[in-house]
């Protein structure tokens, strides 16, 4: 009992410290940002205050929201393709040893090449607009999901499968009740990286060839030299990515803590 009390106290103090750290990091970023603003001036970096007030303005402007939806839609679709496709391909490759061994070096090579060089090809294939953005987001995100899923399936301890057979389980219930829970933690780690890279790919797609969306707004503000808008949109994306990443990290940790 006393031990449990102590444990919960230590968890609480750890959480308090975590919060403290987070506040310190945010303060640090603000200080550096303000410093950069003083150094570079309004030409390149607007001040934190000017940026946040511009962001509030944008959020209150109904004309801004279609751009948000455009980006969210492209990102959501790309993420769906990357996660679902990656999961299916990863499970297949992980379950079939030869295919996995052939595919792995190819996947690792694909993972490390700068995919931006393929963007002209994507544009020629899909044309300007939604499809190209989605395709570019998907090819960024799908590869880590495949690699992580493949390894998760490969690394399932053979004794779990033997146990399932000893308990007279069929292939379906083995898949659902043994393979799936055994692989989920690693797959979620893959999703986390896939998420970040899909967002990256989608935004790169919007930056270079698009007529709508947040990436497009960033490039247009640069062309018009509207620094506060440029940074305000970037800040919004930064906050979105950080929040999602943080949520996924919590899920990830919770799942992996048991292993």
């Amino acid at each position, binding site marked *: 009992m006393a031990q449990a009390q102590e444990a919960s106290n230590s968890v609480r103090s750890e959480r308090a410290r975590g919060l403290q750290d987070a506040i310190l990091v945010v303060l640090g970023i603000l200080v550096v940002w303000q410093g950069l603003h003083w150094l570079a001036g309004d030409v390149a970096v607007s001040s934190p205050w000017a940026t946040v007030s511009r962001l509030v303005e944008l959020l209150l402007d109904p004309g801004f929201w279609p751009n948000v939806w455009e980006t969210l839609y492209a990102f959501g679709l790309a993420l769906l393709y990357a996660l679902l496709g990656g999961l299916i391909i990863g499970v297949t490759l992980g379950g079939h040893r030869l295919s996995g061994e052939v595919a792995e070096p190819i996947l690792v090579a694909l993972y490390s090449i700068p995919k931006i060089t393929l963007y002209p090809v994507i544009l020629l294939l899909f044309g300007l607009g939604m499809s190209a953005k989605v395709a570019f987001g998907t090819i960024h995100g799908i590869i880590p999901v495949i690699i992580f899923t493949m390894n998760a399936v490969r690394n399932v*301890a053979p*004794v*779990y499968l*033997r*146990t399932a*057979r*000893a*308990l*007279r*389980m069929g292939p379906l*219930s083995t898949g659902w*009740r*043994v393979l799936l*829970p*055994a692989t*989920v933690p690693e797959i979620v780690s893959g999703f986390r990286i896939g998420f970040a890279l899909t967002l990256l790919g989608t935004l790169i797609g919007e930056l270079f060839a698009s007529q709508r969306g947040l990436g497009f707004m960033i490039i247009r503000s640069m062309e018009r030299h509207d620094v506060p808008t440029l940074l305000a949109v970037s800040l919004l994306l930064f906050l979105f990515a950080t929040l999602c990443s943080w949520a996924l990290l919590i899920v990830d940790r919770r*799942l992996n*803590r*048991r*292993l």
Partner: protein
Amino acid sequence: MSDSAALHASETARVEPQAHVEVQGITRVYPPVAGNPAVHALGPLDLTLRQGEFFSVVGPSGCGKSTLLDVVAGLAAPSEGTVRFEGKPVAGQVPEGIGVVFQEDASFPWLTVYDNVAFGLRRQGVNRGDLAARVDYAVEFMGLKDFARAYPAQLSGGMRQRVCIARTLVLKPRLLLLDEPFGALDQQTRLLMGDEVLRLWRETGATIMLITHALDEAAMLSDRVGVMSSRPGRFIEVLETGWPRERDSRIVSEEAFGRITSRLWSLLREESLAAIGGRGAKA
């Protein structure tokens, strides 16, 4: 074997209830793979397990002990020969009534101790009250009561092996196959786990076949010990220990224990040397 012979064998099993498991002429040969020659891992080998006995199998490493267990369990098919459990042939899948505990930690890390133990039972459609009672009993029996809500990662290796035993025990197996379940544990824990298994054996009345490399464990736990030759494994002798049913790890201090262990070792020494020598010659 002809159909009429198979029928005959099952009938003798029915007439003679003591024969719980009958293994006849089984071999296991691994076919040649990628230029490596075929490996004759096991047999031909016969074995009859009596209803409710504690039978241990010892043998030099690589002699096919675990392969024998896999074949008896129905986890692997023999290349030749037949296995019968309660008169029915074991073919292709693990029959109802057989429980297996492996050497490796097979507790599921994503489930609590309680849910691990309940795992097999939940699939059988046992009603809720019954399920809780049986799981509680198995958890308590294996000394896991205080850890029911813990995850396996929070437990020691010995405790996790208890979880695996409890998960099998809860299904009330009539034949329990243990594949070196204490192989990874330290000596003291192994002796204590031996006591647990003896208690479990007495209380459930199940037939137990234990695969082990520890001669003292075999000598202490078993009614009979089968000593296997080096590969391809066959029984070179089956030893009766003559222990009373009520026994525990304290029998290690008895004179008979020393006699049995040294008999096992004198049988195994040459086989083990042969196994090592064979390996040395290859290198």
